[in-house]
């Protein structure tokens, strides 16, 4: 049989599972757990609502949502680049996250190694761990500053 698509090195038949129904069933169980989680969280902590928006009244602690907080905090922290010139903090504050995001987007072309198992790629693991720690630290810093 012709197989035009380049597949991974052949996996022995005994090491495969049928997608249907085995994988689908466990996936459905996972979905059911998540549905339960959603409803439980909603019952315990329903979505809140603050006062009606007032463009003339700036609240004390204005912050973006938590998933943008690390970038927001980095933009603030980038003030340390002021020794490079007056425009440097704003420029680097947005350029550095931008470049890192672009690198993440093109990751398959930057990391050309063929090894897949995690323990054979210590550098990649280190990069992932450091990135995570920095992002979480910036988020917490933004939250409590």
């Amino acid at each position, binding site marked *: 049989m012709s197989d035009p*698509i380049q*597949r*991974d*090195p052949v*996996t022995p038949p005994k*090491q*495969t*599972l*049928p*997608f*249907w129904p085995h*994988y*689908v069933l466990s996936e459905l169980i*996972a*979905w059911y757990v*998540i*549905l339960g989680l*959603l*409803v439980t*969280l*909603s*019952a315990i*902590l*329903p*979505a809140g*609502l*603050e006062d*009606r*928006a*007032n*463009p003339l009244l*700036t*609240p004390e602690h*204005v*912050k*973006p*949502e938590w*998933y*943008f907080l690390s*970038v927001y905090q980095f*933009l603030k922290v980038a003030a340390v680049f002021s020794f490079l010139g007056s425009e440097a903090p*704003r*420029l680097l504050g*947005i350029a550095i996250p931008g470049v890192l995001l672009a690198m*993440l*987007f*093109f*990751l*398959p*072309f930057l*990391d050309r190694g*063929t*090894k*897949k*198992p*995690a323990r054979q*790629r210590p550098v*990649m*693991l280190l990069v992932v761990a450091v990135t*995570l720690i920095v992002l979480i630290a910036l988020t917490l810093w933004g939250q409590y500053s």
Partner: protein
Amino acid sequence: MTQSTRAFPRRWFDATMDWFDERIALRQLIAASLHVVIPRRAHTYYLGGITLFLFASQAVTGILLSLYYQPTPESAYNSILYIMNQVNFGWLMRSVHAWGANLMIIFCVLHLLRVAVQGAYKKPREITWMVGMGLLFITLGFGFTGYLLPWDQRAFWATTVGTEIASAVPLVGEAIRDFLRAGADVSALTLSRFLGVHMLILPASLVGLLLVHLLIIHQQGLADPHATEEQ
């Protein structure tokens, strides 16, 4: 004929399938979509699938919310109060939508981490990875545009500082900020713009990219994280 000895529902089901089979080869389509094998060691932890489920949940709760939501600065806030206090299970729909938004971002990122750690982005799966990054950006865009819609203090000022980030981009930064806000400040125009992006542009983009993402996964099969060890 064996058919006459079968129980009623079974016969009815087979007859329906036959009807479709004659016209669109339905059984073949189902077999090609579902009857595939996956590597026993492909530990996905169901993260991508859970993200997909959360998107479906967002679509259902979002459509229900849109039936009561009024997108103007004068009435948006009151329509949210109405959803929370008057509409049957309105509070549940809005709360599930809000929690689902956060969980969807969390599971998107967990899925990304799983793929990164297992090296599943490597050749031949570069396109799946980049399409997946696109899906993450769209998901973040959903969060950003959806946050403004309740039109409370938190929504208004989070959007004000959020769009302000764009102005840090050199040269075109302030133009981008004003484009996002549809003016110099967050206003009624911003609300219309964010709602249109949130309810039409982003869902259409996400569904389109998602189909590509899933089609490629189906074509290539799941990555076996230990495939190179035995070579």
